[in-house]
Structure formats: C-alpha cells, structure tokens
C-alpha cells in the first residue's frame, strides 16, 4: 500500500464514519423529537393557562432585560414586557451604561424616580449607579437599573442580585414575547415533584417580515429576504427537532440567551453569568448542570416547543458572520471551561452523551467539513476521485439534508402551523433546497473564522446592528 493510498483511505473512511454517525444522530433526533412534541401537545391539550394566570400560587418571576443603546425602541419594548400576562412578576430593565438617552427616555415615559435600594452583591458586578421605580401605580412591576457598562453577562448578574423573585427570566429587550409566554415557561417548574427544574427554555422564532405593533406580534409572515428566511428554517429545525429531542433525553446544554427562565438560587450558587465568555447563555446552563451533577441531585432542564419569543435575525452576511463567529467562540469556550466532563461517567448523560455530541458535532463539524472540502480539492487535483461515486454520494447527502429540513417543516405545519399560506410552505421548501449551496458554506466559513479568532485571542462581542421590528408590514 503506497502512502498516497493510505492517506486517501484514511481520510475517506474517517469522514465516512463521521458522516454516518452524524446522520444517525439526526435520524434519532428527528424520531425522538417528534415523540416529545406529540407528547407535549397531548399534555398541553389538558392545560388551561387561565388557571395559572389567575392563581396566587404561581412561581414568582423576575424578567431581566439588559439594554445597551436601545434608546430608539426602549419605550415600546418595555411596554411590551409590562403587558405580559403574569401576575407574580417584576420587570427589571438593566441599562448597561448606554451612551444614548435610553435612561432619560425611560424616566420621562414611566415617571421614574431614584429609590434607596440595597443591592445584595451575591455575584460580583460593576457598580450600580441607581435603581428607579415609577410613581405611577400602573407601572409598579417596573424596576430600571442604571449601571456602569460591563457587558451583557455583567448586566444580567446585576439583575440576579436585584431580583426579588424565585425565578429569573432572561430576555433580549428587543424580543417580542407572546402574551402567554411566561405562563407557558412557568409550568415546567411546577410539574416535576421528584426533580428540581433548574431552567426552562422556549422556542425562538424569526420576526423579520412579521407585523408588529406597539411591541406586540400582530401577524406572522415568512421573511421575504433570503437570509432571514433560511434562518427561519434553521430555527424551526434546531428548536422543534434538536432541542426537543435533547430535552426529552434531559441532556439539553443550551437555552437561548434571547429567552429562558432559571432557578435563581442555583444561578447564584453557580456564581451567575460568566463574563469571560461570549457564549454566556450556554456556559450558564452547562455550569448549572455540572453543579447539580456534582451535588448528585435529580434535576431537569426543560424545554417547550411553543413559539414564545420572536427575534430579529441578521439580514446581511456581515452581521450574520459576526453572530456565527461569536456562537462558535462561545461554544468552544464553554467546552473548554468544562472539559473535565468529557466522557466522564461521573457526570452521567451530561458527560457521556451531551458534552461529546457538542464536541464532535457542534464544535468539530465545521472543522471536519472544511478540512474535508480542502482534502477533496487536493484529491481532485491529483485525480484520486471516483467521480461517478462522488456524484451519487453528493446526491445522497444533499437529499438527506433536504429531507431533514422538509421533515422539520412538516413538524411545524402539523403542530403550530405559524406560516399558514401555501406559498410560505413552498417558499420554505425552496429555501431548504438552496440552503446547502448558499447559507451553509457561509456558516461553516464563519465558524472557521470563529476558531481562528479564538486562537488569536480576539474576544470581541461583534456589533449586532438591527433594522428594528417596530414598523408594521402592511400587505
């Protein structure tokens, strides 16, 4: 056997084995998640959320919304948060040293005044400049905190220190929440008598193109632009299939920073959000799980498939690239912080399945794909490719990816059916067809850049310019 043949065979079979394992995981996730969603929907058909809305026994929740230079839409966003159906809650807006007039606008709009407030520094944070409450009883649930700039994680930690309730709900201030989002998010905390539910997440959907008025979602539309549309498909796949399956396994490692609820006591015991990573949302969930595993206490990270939170997706390659670059760095940093759990049986399913899956198929996947593509080009140049076999394999892989997306769309239609027009479904299918040629290579490239940036110790968050969701779209 010549060394060329050895190298060729090694790469071919290694990539084949990797791909077969990955595809098997996807098939498992597809089947397993459909069972989880089905079970949830059956269970939910017996749930009357009005009971929770009217009860005094609901878990107390503190919504934490960090805001940095959000002056343009802050009044509307806060109004949207205050209009959520939930009795036992407070809304804490964390002005993270904004350079714009966010605070002044809030003071004027909600008749705020500075109060004497003792901040219990259970988690060390940057200095709090002032805590404000409204003179108007209508806004009694609102607390505005003005603090020195310290980033999202630091702002959330201030919120944890100030929150008086048992559970914290961390959201992006510019997200649009469904009116009953908190009722649905609270329920899992009440359902498991033998497990401590340490966190709950809900489905995030893409709001680009939707009609939004006064911070409320009026009508759902599929985005017209390609990039937000392909992210719509990607989110449906990730949330409805991936996270539901992981939640059913009780192996979920990520609750999106855009919307998730956490047990405050455990968050504090874990030391709060880590400001040394750009993936603070994932890192917190992993740390909380690790803490519970080390305590040997039964716990659960729950996830519900209802679309509860609508967010604006990046509409340009530049912003999308920054976002994916950051996500990659966040994933690697989190995996690095908790490397002790890698195939460590003392961490149970977390150490033996969840962590290795994220390592091999979330962190390594873009690298394997990039290396595979580079090797393929080299092999092509040296004439080592069996082209007829290659095209058959390419068609198979393409069809697999396409069918997986179609399955996700089917699940969406059979469950929540947010996109009611037939042309929207056709559009999603066309998007699924185009995704591997345009979107996927770009995402892989952004992830590679994320790896390189991490090696160069670049740890910037990356500016996320948004177009805004407030202007309603009339059809």
């Amino acid at each position: 056997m010549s060394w060329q043949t050895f190298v060729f065979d090694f790469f071919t079979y290694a990539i084949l084995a990797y791909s077969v394992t990955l595809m098997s995981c996807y098939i498992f996730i597809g089947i397993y998640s459909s069972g989880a969603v089905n079970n949830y929907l059956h269970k939910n058909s017996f749930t009357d959320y009005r009971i929770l809305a009217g009860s005094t026994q609901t878990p107390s929740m503190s919504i934490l919304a960090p805001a940095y230079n959000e002056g343009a839409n802050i009044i509307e966003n806060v109004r949207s948060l205050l209009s959520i159906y939930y009795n036992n809650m407070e809304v804490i807006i964390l002005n993270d040293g904004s350079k714009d007039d966010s605070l002044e606008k809030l003071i004027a709009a909600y008749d705020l005044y500075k109060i004497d407030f003792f901040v219990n520094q259970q988690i060390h944070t940057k200095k709090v400049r002032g805590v404000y409450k409204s003179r108007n009883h209508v806004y009694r649930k609102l607390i505005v905190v003005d603090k020195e700039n310290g980033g999202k994680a630091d702002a959330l930690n201030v919120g944890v220190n100030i929150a008086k309730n048992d559970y914290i709900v961390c959201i992006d201030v510019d997200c649009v929440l469904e009116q009953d989002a908190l009722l649905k998010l609270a329920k899992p905390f009440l359902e498991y008598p033998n497990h401590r539910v340490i966190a709950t997440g809900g489905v995030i959907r893409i709001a680009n193109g939707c009609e939004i008025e006064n911070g409320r979602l009026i009508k759902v539309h599929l985005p017209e632009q390609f990039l937000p549309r392909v992210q719509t498909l990607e989110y449906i796949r990730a949330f409805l299939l991936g996270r539901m399956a992981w939640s059913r396994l009780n192996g979920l490692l990520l609750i999106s920073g855009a919307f998730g609820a956490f047990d405050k006591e455990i968050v504090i015991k874990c030391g709060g959000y880590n400001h040394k990573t750009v993936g603070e949302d994932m890192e917190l969930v992993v740390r909380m799980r690790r803490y519970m595993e080390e305590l040997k206490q039964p716990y659960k990270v729950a996830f519900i498939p209802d679309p509860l939170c609508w967010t604006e997706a990046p509409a340009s390659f530049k912003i999308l690239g920054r976002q994916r670059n950051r996500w990659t760095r966040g994933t690697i940093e989190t995996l690095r912080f908790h490397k002790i759990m890698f195939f460590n049986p003392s961490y149970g399913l977390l150490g033996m399945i969840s962590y290795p899956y994220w390592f091999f198929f979330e962190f390594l996947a873009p690298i394997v794909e990039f290396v595979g593509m580079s090797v393929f080009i080299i092999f092509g140049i040296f004439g080592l490719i069996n082209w007829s076999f290659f095209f058959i394999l390419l068609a198979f892989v393409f069809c697999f990816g396409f069918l997986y997306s179609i399955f996700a769309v089917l699940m969406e239609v059979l469950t929540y059916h947010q996109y009611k027009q037939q042309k929207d479904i056709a559009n999603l299918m066309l998007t699924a067809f185009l995704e591997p040629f345009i979107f996927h290579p770009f995402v892989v490239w952004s992830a590679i850049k994320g790896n390189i940036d991490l090696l160069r110790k670049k740890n910037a968050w990356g500016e996320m310019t948004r177009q805004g969701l407030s202007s309603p779209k009339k059809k």
Partner: protein
Amino acid sequence: MANLLIRKAIFFEEIEDDIPVTLRVQQSLKQTPFRKFLTNELLKAKKNVSGSAAENIKQLYLQLNLNQYALAGLKNRRWYLKAQAIQELSVMGLKEYLTKIYRFTNNANELVRMEAQIAIVNFYGFEGLRFLDVVSYPITEWQQIKLLQELLRISPDNFKGIEKWLKSPNKTVVVFALKLVRGYHRFELHDSVVGCLADADKQVKLQAIISLGEIYTAETSRLLIGQFLSAHPKHQLAIIKVLQNIATDDDIPFLLQQLDHENVEIKLFAARALANISAKGLESLMNHKQALQYPFIEIIAQVKNELAI
C-alpha cells in the same frame, strides 16, 4: 351544523321532549372527526353556560349517546384518550360514572390521575378530596394549583380530613394539606402544622412555616424562633419573612441579633421585620451599632423608603 345544533339546544324549552336532531347530524356522528368536533364544541359550551342551558347541553350529549364513546375511551390503552374521556364525563357532570372514574385517581399515568382527581372534586367538592387518603403518587405543584382553583368555586363548610392528610406518608399530600390550611384559615389546626415543622422533608417544613404565618397565635413567633438556629438557611429566611408579619415587641432582641447573621438576605429581612413591628422596632434598628456603616446604611434607607410608600 354543530354550532347550529348547540345553539338550538341552549335555547330549547320543552322539558320532556328530546332536542330535535336532523338526520344529517345523526349520520355524520358515525364519522369520528365530526363526532370529536361536536363533542369538543359541546364541552366548550357546557363550560360557558349555566342553569337550564347547561342542562340542555348535557341532555343533548346523552341523547346523542356521546357518553358511550367516552366510556369506551376509559378503556382505551392510550393515556390521552383515557384522560380526555374522564374530562368529558366530568365537564358533563355525569356523576353516575363516579366509581369508574374514582379508580383512576391513583393511576400510574400522571395526566389520567390528574383528570380523575379534578373530576371527583368537580362532582363532590371538598368531600371529593378523599382520594388524598390513598393516593400514593405525587401531587405535582401544577395539580395542586388546579385543585385549589377547582375548590374556589365551592363553599368550604368546614370540610374534614386535613388532619389526616397532614400526617400522610405522601409528602406532596402534606404540602397540599398545608396549603389548604392557610388558604381556608384553619386556625384549629395550628398544633398539627407545628408538628410538620419536625418533618424531615424540606418542602413540608417550608410550607409549614409559611402556613403558620397565616394561622398564627400568640405562641407562633416563639415557636418559630425556637426552630431558627437549627433550621436550613432557606427555612431561616422563611421564618424571618413570616416574623415580618407576626412578630411583636418581644421579638425585637431576636431580630436585632439576626442583623449580625452571615447571610445578607437575612439581615435585610430582619431589618424589614424590625421596621414593620412598631416604632420601637424601627428605633432599635436605627440605633444599631453599625447603622451608619455598609450594608446597614443602605438597608435602613431601603426599609425606610418602603415604609414611606
């Protein structure tokens, strides 16, 4: 078709006659989707009307033999069909099926069990809570909220059984009983609740502390203070929170002592309790040796601010 029939039933006035049902409806009933749709619409209507209109809906339901499908559902292997059947019979108020439904109150499936328990309470009010005597599966917090909500519609009339449930080996039953004690202000059970403070289960102990805050006597604060030193930090905080509402001038020395507690949250709540007791409590707080130092200077400012609101 279904809505028209329901409307006709709601306004039907002939007491002894059957509600007229068209041949088309009778034939359509053989089709499962229509039958399910009609049943759902009838259930929705039954929940939203009362008096003779509700009776008419029930009559129509029985006249169409929909109860037979529900009874078949009780025997179905799929849990959600079983739970749905129980819910249907419960909403329609068909008490004659009590025995069949009662046996599901301790079913292994959580949803079946929950629907059966709600149905029994719906039929028999507080008396229906007798399933708590035997239930061996946990009653989730969610189920407790549902049961308490269901009971809100019924007059309590000094119902019996709580004392027994406070001693149940099923800890979730004890927790639920403690919620009933405080919700219905059962002062006569004060001593039984005090007995729960000795329970090893953390949740039972926490709920007992909270309940004592609602049914307190002159002795309660002394009893809670007696428990304080050996209590878990979570229970210590709960005790201080309860003392905020029930403490008297006699408890001021204990609360002043807690200002030196290592847990800052306990310091804050002790200060709040002192400020809430009386002018004397507030004065002793302000005269505390470290009143002008951090964190007390901020804590006292906050507490005074709260009093002013």
